[in-house]
């Protein structure tokens, strides 16, 4: 176990983590803001890359191919949203249905299970080859710019009237309707936005790894949740600003890949990684629940009033 092997892997960890960070921010929108667990993303995480590669191979310029991937994700989110709101299917099942359907769609889009894309042949934005280079096309830098721009845009959006109505829908749908918010519309919009970001992340990932694969999104929701939860566990007490919370999610994704890399470095079988991920996420979800259920917090009488406010705050966070 040469420590240099791990150190050498760090730039790749940062790049891949940041790419998945965009995906995790998409998950954050549905899971935390809309309060919906959207499983569509397992399909969308392949749709974005597939769409991007096919558009690129058809000679579509890079920015338009990225936009195309984003829109493909938006469409997937729309389908889940309509399943949920118009057809009355529970959100989690609506996502599973779309995810399953997307498997066929992704195969249709690519025409085969796997499509390579080479930076020698096409102009690509992120390329694994330059992950250690000190240049402007280092994928870490490129993706970091993407993450920053996305956080800035979302920060603005969720401060607008429309964005606030999305947040209200997740916080209290009854109240939202009483205030004249069409909660069906806001849910669909949130799902579209979320899946658009996931597809964009997928398009970047396909470039980075040099191919799109029909299975590249398998378990994506769990990785996304892992990033959201790791970010919250580590930065929850520190970051209260909304933009910082999204940054925490992106950092959470990097930390997830760091753990992943350490596991590989320790010589564990990467086939077991999904098992390990599932267990880690389960543990992180269970700990706050157990804490609330079994922990007895001793509070000095003097600051009891303060503490009451504090616990209230944690409940909501």
């Amino acid at each position, binding site marked *: 176990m040469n420590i240099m092997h791990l150190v050498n892997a760090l730039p790749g960890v940062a790049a891949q983590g940041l790419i998945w960070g965009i995906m995790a921010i998409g998950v954050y929108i549905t899971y935390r803001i809309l309060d919906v667990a959207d499983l569509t993303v397992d399909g969308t995480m392949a749709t974005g890359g597939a769409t991007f590669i096919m558009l690129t191979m058809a000679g579509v310029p890079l920015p338009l191919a990225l936009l195309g991937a984003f829109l493909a994700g938006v469409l997937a989110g729309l389908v889940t949203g309509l399943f949920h709101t118009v057809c009355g299917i529970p959100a989690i099942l609506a996502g599973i249905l779309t995810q399953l359907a997307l498997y066929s769609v992704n195969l249709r889009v690519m025409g085969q299970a796997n499509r390579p894309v080479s930076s020698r042949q096409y102009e690509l934005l992120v390329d694994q080859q330059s992950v250690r280079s000190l240049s402007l096309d280092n994928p870490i830098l490129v993706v970091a710019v993407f993450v920053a721009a996305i956080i800035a845009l979302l920060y603005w959006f969720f401060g607008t009237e429309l964005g*606030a109505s999305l947040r209200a829908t997740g916080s*209290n749908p009854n*109240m939202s309707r009483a*205030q004249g918010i069409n909660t069906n519309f806001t849910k669909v919009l949130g799902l579209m936005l979320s899946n658009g970001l996931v597809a964009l992340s997928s398009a970047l990932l396909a470039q980075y790894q040099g191919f799109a694969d029909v299975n590249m999104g398998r378990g994506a929701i769990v990785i996304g949740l892992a990033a959201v939860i790791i970010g919250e566990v580590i930065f929850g007490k520190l970051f209260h600003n909304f933009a910082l919370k999204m940054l925490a999610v992106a950092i959470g994704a990097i930390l997830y890949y760091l753990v992943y890399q350490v596991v590989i470095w320790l010589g564990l079988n990467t086939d077991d990684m999904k098992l390990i991920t599932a267990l880690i996420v389960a543990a992180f979800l269970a700990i706050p629940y157990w804490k609330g259920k079994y922990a007895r917090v001793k509070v000095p009488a003097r600051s009891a009033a303060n503490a009451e406010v504090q616990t209230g705050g944690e409940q*909501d966070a």
Partner: protein
Amino acid sequence: MLEIKEIWKTFNAGTVNEKQALRGVSLTLKDGDFCTVIGGNGAGKSTMLNAVAGTFTVDSGSIIIDGVDVTHLPEHKRAKFIGRVFQDPMMGTAPTMQIEENLALAARRGQRRGLGWGITRTERADYRELLQDLSLGLEDRLTSKVGLLSGGQRQALTLLMASLRQPKLLLLDEHTAALDPKTAAKVLALSDKIVEENGLTTMMVTHNMKDAIAHGNRLIMMYDGKIVIDVSGEEKKKLTVPDLLALFSKVSGSDEADDKLLLS
């Protein structure tokens, strides 16, 4: 202002749980009327309010607010006309959002929500002033999450939100039932104040007969999905709780209903 014409609603039709919740309810409220609604559990009070608010659509009949037939409008479109405060203090506010954000959401009730700022600087100053009038100590906590507030504070805030953009109709659905007596009295006094200052047409469901008599200019009692008593004006002012009970047993034709009503 409000015209309810012969509305019927049956829940779980065709099953063993079938319940005719509204059986031909008709009611007309004049502009500025403050109508209290009483009745036992299952009499149809909340169902009537929810029918007006659009939580569900009625099986037959029509609902007209300020000349607009809203019978087939979805809940969020009716919100343009209606301010609501619910029985459960948790229902009326968004707990994970700040006090000022909740107010800003309410200030845009019934309006198109676009890409303008969700809250502006002038609004913030206005809200601080409005909260100062409530004297709940919330004016310095504008950016606190509503989830941190007590039930009474939330109901007071929900009242303020309901009246922020003047509604054609204010629906108070047992909005003090979940509060302790002292807080309930406070919230009730605040309701009176807000209704009076804005001249709001109001319907208030309550379980408390004394409150029903003491507030508003009209009182209706529901029984078994129908309005069985309707008093207003001078007649209502003179009403006492024993009067009301006597009236009720006469109308419903049974004495045992007294207990049911009192106990509920």
